[in-house]
């Protein structure tokens, strides 16, 4: 069963905070849910499906449904790291198409900035993870895992630090217009490569921000979407793909987007060249480069040349990306950037992005997420959305 046209994103809200030491995580979820309902023009009692991932406190949907005072008949707590929320939108469309719910609420929130999280800390998903014994002793953190991906890409394809830097430069050009963005100064390629080396070959400015906050989206069936007085964002296609080490046949040159992307394009019936705006997960500059290649915006190995010279800057290049400033400059709440990827794509399709970065006549957009670690195992999720 295809989800093409079976559901719409009718509400979207990004929490304005970037530092929230006086908020509980559950409260941030609730504030995001409230914001998305207000945006949609729906009431909490309209919600009959709830979706959350590992950032939700307590026993996920059980704790949160109770805390939010929801009465739902469908829940989903799929956790594929930062890509979870793109998966949730697809799963919500499937649930709506199957008649399991009418209005699905998806929330994300967290406070990694207040809690002192950093990408240089070793990742640990618990002693029970089957890979833990073979990885914990080696100090694989977030940034050095992505560093290994970048190192291999440079080795195989001749990608340079200057080419990676262009991704941050483009994000900073967009973030200057976002009053909520953490980093609003426009930076140059020289600024990025001159910033301190964190984990070879990634510099400080190759990394995303660490921010508190959150976001929420609401997915609804077509009749409900048509009854609301908002521009309509139709879900055209989706794909999801976990990728790991394949029993020791490690290939860090390809991300799961090589599978989730084609699945989404096929379902949507469109091609990469048709996409007018792309939200692309940007935990690090190399993350963007890998996904641009794997989604088919350029050939594998050509990403460095593709992103150079402002090709990702709205109004300048061929593929305007992350016009809110992305995780690289704006916001990466809960260390999970998938939700904000959806939200900026919705803004673009509604014509509600900042006028300085709005893509004129934007009717077809892509939102792409990864979660976990490109350097070990990760999830990829792709959504293709259309302004109706």
């Amino acid at each position: 069963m295809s989800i093409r046209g079976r559901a719409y994103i009718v509400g979207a809200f990004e929490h304005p905070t970037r530092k929230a030491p006086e908020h509980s995580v559950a409260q941030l979820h609730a504030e995001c849910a409230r914001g998305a309902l207000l945006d949609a023009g729906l009431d909490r009692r309209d919600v009959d499906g709830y979706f959350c991932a590992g950032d939700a406190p307590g026993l996920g949907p059980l704790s949160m449904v109770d805390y939010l005072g929801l009465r739902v008949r469908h829940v989903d707590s799929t956790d594929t790291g930062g890509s979870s929320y793109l998966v949730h939108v697809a799963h919500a469309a499937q649930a709506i198409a199957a008649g399991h719910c009418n209005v699905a609420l998806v929330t994300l929130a967290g406070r990694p900035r207040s809690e002192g999280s950093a990408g240089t800390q070793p990742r640990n998903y618990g002693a029970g993870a089957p890979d833990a014994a073979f990885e914990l002793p080696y100090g694989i953190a977030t940034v050095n895992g992505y560093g290994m991906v970048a190192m291999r890409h440079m080795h195989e394809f001749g990608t340079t630090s200057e080419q990676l830097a262009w991704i941050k430069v483009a994000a900073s050009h967009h973030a200057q217009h976002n009053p909520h963005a953490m980093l609003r100064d426009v930076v140059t390629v020289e600024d990025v490569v001159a910033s301190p080396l964190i984990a070879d070959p990634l510099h400080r400015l190759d990394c995303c921000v660490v921010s508190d906050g959150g976001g929420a989206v609401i997915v609804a069936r077509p009749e409900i979407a048509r009854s609301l007085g908002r521009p309509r964002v139709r879900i055209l296609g989706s794909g999801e793909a976990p990728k790991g080490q394949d029993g020791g046949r490690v290939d860090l040159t390809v991300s799961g987007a090589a599978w989730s992307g084609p699945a989404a394009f096929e379902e949507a019936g469109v091609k990469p060249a048709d996409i007018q705006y792309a939200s692309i997960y940007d935990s690090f500059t190399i993350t963007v480069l890998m996904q641009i290649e794997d989604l088919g915006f350029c050939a594998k190995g050509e990403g460095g040349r593709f992103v150079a010279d402002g090709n990702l800057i709205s109004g300048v290049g061929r593929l305007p990306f992350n016009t809110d400033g992305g995780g690289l400059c704006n916001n990466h709440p809960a260390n999970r950037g998938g939700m904000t990827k959806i939200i900026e794509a919705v803004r673009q399709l509604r014509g509600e992005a900042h006028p300085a970065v709005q893509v004129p006549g934007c009717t077809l957009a892509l939102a792409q997420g990864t979660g976990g670690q490109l350097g070990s195992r990760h999830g990829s999720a792709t959504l293709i959305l259309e302004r109706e």
Partner: protein
Amino acid sequence: MTEQPAVREIPEPPVNPENRPYFEACAQGRLLIGRCNDCGQHHFYPRVICPSCFSNRTEWIPSEGTGTIYTYSTMHRGTPVPYTVAYVTLDEGVTMLTNLVDCDPARLAIGQRVRVVFAKTVAGTSVPMFTPA
């Protein structure tokens, strides 16, 4: 670039009944990998059910402990002691996460030959790492 200090505190691996033989072998200076007696494939990390064909006819076999660097990254910031994570492709064909030690990180290269050495964790468990051959 200075010599990498050898004083990084190595976290303890969570040893369990499935992976215990691996760490018992490490304590004797031997690196084990998984092999499947149905499909013939090697695998890493080792596990009881073959990740290639799902057979349960797997066994532990010793690796020669030699291989080449697939990729690596030295952490320079946010750590008390710089250290280098890497993937090493063993000559048996499987690629494993590890650290590169007793080397100048600035002189490492993808494709470089390396050999296994064993380092002790904070609790005294031996874990395999690699050094230029």
